C-alpha cells in the first residue's frame, strides 16, 4: 500500500492505494498515530485506490477509528468500492464509519 497526503482547509486528506492488508494496516495505523499526535482532528481517508481489504485491514480501521474518537476527532471514509463495502457491511462496520462515495462529498461533511 502507498499513502498520499494533502491538506484541504482544516481537513487532512490521506489517500490510500493498493491493498489494506497486514502490511497496509500497520502503515495506516502508524501514520494515523503521527497525524493525530501532530494535532490534526478532521481526517478524510480516501479508499478510491484500495482494491482489497482483509480482516487485518479491518482491524487497522477499527484501531484508527478508536484513536480518532478518543482524541475528539472526526473521520470520514471516501470512495469504498462495492466489494470493500460488502466486507465492511458483513463485519458490522458500516454503521461505525461515515462513508461517502467521493472525496468531494466527504469534504462537504466537515465543518468549515
Amino acid at each position, binding site marked *: 500500500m502507498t499513502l498520499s497526503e494533502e491538506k484541504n482547509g482544516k481537513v487532512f486528506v490521506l489517500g490510500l492505494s493498493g491493498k489494506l*492488508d497486514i502490511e497496509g494496516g500497520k502503515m495506516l495505523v502508524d501514520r494515523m498515530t503521527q497525524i493525530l499526535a501532530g494535532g490534526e482532528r478532521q481526517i478524510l481517508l480516501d479508499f478510491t485506490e484500495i482494491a*482489497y481489504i*482483509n480482516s*487485518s485491514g*479491518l482491524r487497522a480501521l477499527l484501531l484508527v477509528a478508536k484513536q480518532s474518537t478518543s482524541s475528539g476527532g472526526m473521520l470520514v471514509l471516501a470512495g469504498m468500492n462495492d466489494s470493500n463495502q460488502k466486507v465492511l457491511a458483513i*463485519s*458490522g462496520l458500516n454503521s*461505525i464509519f461515515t462513508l461517502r462515495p467521493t472525496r468531494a462529498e466527504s469534504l462537504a461533511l466537515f465543518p468549515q
Partner: protein
Amino acid sequence: MAESTTLVLKNDVSELESVLSFVSDLCARNSIPAETERDLTLALDEMITNVAQHAYPMGGEHHFTLQITVNNEEFVARIEDDGVEFNPNEHPIPDLGAPLEERKVGGLGVYLVRQIMTSVEYQRVAGKNVVTLRKKLT
C-alpha cells in the same frame, strides 16, 4: 472443466503471495467472475494467514497443505495442518453491533470466511486440522 492442485506451504505469511497468484490464474482459466474471485481470495487469505500465524505457536518451520479443486459446480479448498487444534466453526462470533468504544478490533477473519463461503467444514483427523471451504459456482 475440472482441476485439482495441492500446494505445500510453509507457516509463513509470505506464502500468501504465491497462493493468491495461483488462485487468480485459476479463476481466469475457469472464467470465474470477479466477485467470486474476490471472495475466494479473501477466504484463502484469512485461513492461510491464520495457520501461518497461530497454528504453530512454538515457532520453527512447519509445512501444511492446501488442496484446491474446481469443477463446473464448485470451488473447494482443503487446508490440512498438524498445528494446534482449531475449529473455525466454534470460533466465537464478534459482537458486530457493539458501539465503537466497546468494539473488539480482532476476530473478524474467520467470521468473514464463514459468511462469504457456501460452507466451512471442520474435522480433526489423526492430530490434524482439516478445514474444507466450499463455494458454489453456479
